């Protein structure tokens, strides 16, 4: 086998791996759309509580949770399952976020009604769980900036735990923006840059 033939074979391997990597790159849509949907959820529920429209809180939570679920399914889960290539990291990350979603459902709807804790603790608990999910997503995708941004969830959890302010929900919205939506946009920019580079 000549050196040229070896180089040719190595080029084939490299080219195929690069093409696959481009196809399986994370677009950031999960972070952006779920972040926006969650911020909307927190805002509506918090405003209803602030203006003492208590009888609408539970129905709003149910409706908004269903909406979040639909966003998650149509924007994230379904497209991932329909992709031409299934990568191991994406499968793991999708499973991680499904599990996170189930846990959030339980802490939002089940345990407050079982009087394990009051609704006041929801923001703190949700932040802790979402921090884990964002952190692990950054680790799995080897995106260090996502790992760093995830720390904001735990900072937010502490701030919400110690704050007595009725505007505590703004901390949650700020954390969602900093530690979910912003990393999502950064991921999306990198994804688009990579696509443009490959097309050039």
């Amino acid at each position, binding site marked *: *086998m000549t*050196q040229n033939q*070896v180089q*040719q*074979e*190595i080029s*084939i*391997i490299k*080219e*195929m*791996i690069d*093409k*696959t*990597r481009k*196809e*399986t790159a994370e677009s950031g849509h999960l972070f952006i759309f779920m972040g926006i949907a969650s911020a909307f959820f927190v805002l509506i529920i918090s405003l209803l509580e602030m203006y003492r429209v208590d009888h609408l809180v539970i129905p709003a939570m149910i409706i908004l949770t269903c909406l979040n679920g639909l966003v998650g399914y149509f924007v994230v889960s379904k497209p991932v399952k*329909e992709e*031409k*290539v*299934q*990568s*191991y990291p994406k*499968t793991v990350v999708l499973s991680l976020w499904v599990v996170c979603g189930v846990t959030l459902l339980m802490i939002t709807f089940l345990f407050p009604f079982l009087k394990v804790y009051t609704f006041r603790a929801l923001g703190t608990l949700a932040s802790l769980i979402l921090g884990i999910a964002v952190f692990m997503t950054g680790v799995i995708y080897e995106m260090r900036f996502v790992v760093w941004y995830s720390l904001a969830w735990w900072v937010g959890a502490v701030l919400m735990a110690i704050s007595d302010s009725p505007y505590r929900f703004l901390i949650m919205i700020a954390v969602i923006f900093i530690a979910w939506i912003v990393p999502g946009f950064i991921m999306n920019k990198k994804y688009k840059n990579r696509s443009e580079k490959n097309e050039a």
Partner: protein
Amino acid sequence: MKHENILQLDPLIHAPTRLAILSILVTVKNANFTFLKESIGTTDGNLSTHLTKLENNGFVKIKKIFKGKKPQTICAITGKGRKGFKKYLEQLEQIVQMQKY
């Protein structure tokens, strides 16, 4: 590396199209036929032939499913295929080392 080792490069993987197929499949859980065809830049018939050869030798497994009413061919590398590809890479590396000296 001795010359007899060069001759032992797996001829199953040595073909460019099959090498390309395994290079893709080794990095993913599975890939569909369309992606393989587009990435490698080959025809349906040519790709089918090479996939069949790899499947017959236990290097890939091929599953035909329906997504809605659309048939899809999903390909994944097997453990045997992964080992074979890894061995092939090691042999390529040895050739490169040998050619340096």
